[in-house]
């Protein structure tokens, strides 16, 4: 019953998850077992690149859940991603121990440089992995809770909400740029040595991080499917389409928005935490408002309102970016802007919608998938197909 509801009824999702799983099997083999001279060898650079893409896909999934299903356009999800990343970065900094440039057993290099005598209170506990992981969830979750609580209760919606989320991430960026904040200022956190005792640049560690990103993506996908196929998922879609009707049906709309927003922020935090050890650095640039906008473009390109569309979008746009920036880095932003315009004009349902059009699918699957998945849950939905 549950697998039917979560996976089997979702063809696109099955295909995308299948590809992720396939990559999780093939990439380690091709990296570790296939000799470097072979054409099938996958370099560690590529492994890290793919791992990064998986983190982006997880982030896109988080945005799609609230934007595609609940209609909340957050232009500040980069902030939750970066906070998760900083929490992981703090753990990795504490792992360096006395191996830093200045050799201080406890203080990270930048604190020694600033003549700080002891560790600030908010750096306590980050030498423990479990504590850092807890913070990866709690810090973005708590920020989302407070921010969402104020915004949704005041019934801030639509473009106003988007603008204040931009302001949020911009404010955090400015704050993290300050040296006195104690997060390394504009250099951020870097020079990581190892994670859980394993050297961070080693092949095996890179593969493990890649696999961890893949597993997180799959688990998050299933969790999101569980939400959108439950009654809560239908209520969330109802809020998107007719908020006041939902309220007059007796639902406390603010609570639904709030919890979905918090969940989504936590997913973004996890994505950030997996991202940082793979790229080896986290700095305030991750809070840049542009990042948050870019990731909305991924979701729009893939197809919002279909969870797997977000993953497709994150991979396509980022792959495109990798190719593009190696040939002509200055024009990438123009290309991104053009992409957004084209997608909005020509492909309102994104790449996923394009596939569906080629398949000449019945009208039902043409509509937003949130709705088809819901109908498929009904035991006697065969009649509905005929009716349509």
């Amino acid at each position: 019953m549950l697998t039917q509801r979560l996976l089997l009824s979702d063809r696109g999702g099955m295909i995308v998850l299948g590809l992720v799983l396939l990559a999780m099997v093939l990439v380690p083999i091709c990296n570790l077992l296939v000799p470097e001279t072979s054409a099938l060898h996958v370099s560690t650079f590529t492994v890290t690149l793919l791992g990064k893409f998986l983190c982006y896909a997880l982030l896109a999934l988080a945005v799609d859940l609230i934007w595609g299903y609940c209609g909340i356009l957050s232009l500040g999800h980069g902030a939750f991603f970066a906070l998760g990343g900083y929490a992981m970065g703090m753990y990795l900094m504490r792992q360096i121990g006395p191996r830093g440039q200045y050799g201080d057993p406890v203080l990270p290099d930048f604190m020694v440089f600033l003549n700080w005598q002891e560790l600030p209170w908010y750096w306590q506990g980050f030498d423990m992995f479990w504590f850092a992981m807890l913070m990866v969830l709690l810090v973005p979750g708590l920020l989302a809770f407070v921010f969402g609580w104020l915004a949704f209760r005041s019934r801030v919606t639509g473009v106003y909400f988007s603008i204040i989320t931009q302001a949020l991430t911009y404010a955090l960026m400015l704050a993290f740029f300050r040296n006195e904040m104690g997060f390394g200022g504009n250099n951020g956190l870097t020079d990581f040595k190892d994670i859980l005792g394993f050297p961070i640049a080693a092949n095996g560690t890179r593969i493990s991080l890649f696999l961890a990103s893949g597993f997180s993506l799959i688990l998050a996908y299933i969790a999101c499917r569980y939400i959108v196929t439950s009654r809560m998922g239908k209520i969330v879609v109802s809020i998107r389409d007719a908020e006041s009707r939902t309220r007059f049906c007796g639902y406390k709309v603010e609570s639904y928005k709030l919890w979905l927003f918090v969940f989504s922020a936590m997913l973004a935090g996890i994505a950030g935490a997996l991202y940082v050890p793979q790229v080896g650095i986290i700095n305030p640039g991750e809070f840049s408002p542009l990042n948050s906008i870019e990731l909305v473009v991924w979701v729009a390109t893939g197809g919002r309102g279909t969870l797997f569309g977000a993953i497709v979008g994150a991979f396509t746009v980022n792959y495109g970016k990798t190719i593009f920036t190696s040939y002509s880095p200055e024009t990438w932003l123009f290309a991104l802007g053009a992409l957004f315009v084209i997608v909005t004009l020509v492909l309102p349902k994104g790449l996923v919608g394009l596939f569906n059009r080629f398949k000449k699918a019945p009208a039902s699957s043409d509509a937003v998938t949130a709705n088809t998945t819901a109908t498929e849950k009904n035991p006697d939905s065969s009649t509905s197909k005929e009716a349509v």
Partner: protein
Amino acid sequence: MNIFSHARRSLGQSDPNFGAPLDTTHGTILYVEGVTVSFDGFRALNNLNLYIDEGELRCIIGPNGAGKTTMMDVITGKTKPDAGSVYFGQQINLLELSEHQIARGGIGRKFQKPTIFEALSVYENLELATAADKRVWWTLTQQLNSAQKFRIDEVLVQIGLQEHRHKNAGALSHGQKQWLEIGMLLMQSPRVLLVDEPVAGMTGEETEKTAELLLSLAGKHSVIVVEHDMKFVRSIARKVTVLHQGSVLTEGTMDQVQNDPKVIEVYLGE
């Protein structure tokens, strides 16, 4: 609005005990007394007094700007009045409650423009409207039980949409959407139904069906209908209230109202 009033509103608020039978010993289910609402100096409602009896069908008419929609906003908690009181039965003060609590408590509202969940099927629209635990965490795992399914089937028959149960609600005709919205109100097991312009844009046949539906609901529920279509009002009305400039001009049967010189002057005169 400051943070503290938010906090008070959300922390101090618990659902009133709607499970207890509503105290309607005097036969009146809804008391609207001395209600005044101003928007930037304009008085949308001006010392409005309105009493709705249990099970009655009441039509409310009045020229544009008479305050009909504002009155519904006040009863359903969307607008808080500057003065006055609104009681549901004799015990429950509606002014202390928010929209979702009032809806849970048994006051259903149909909007002027049909407002349904277009991305969902007819059946799912009714499912979401079903009276059930509507707190966030419960809805993650909730399924319909057999009594609720039975109730949905009943309502589908009542609103005449049993053949369209799996159709996308967005694909329904205008009239069908209006009925679906009424059906959604019925799923909430309401005591009072507020129906705003139910026949606007309907064909003659659809209008007749709607009149039948509303008449069949009176008795079991108190129904308040706001409507412009005089022919329609005449066909269903037992008691009519005329609003003018935010207060009640007169009340009575359709004939009494239509012959009232005050009404003729402000509304039917031309």
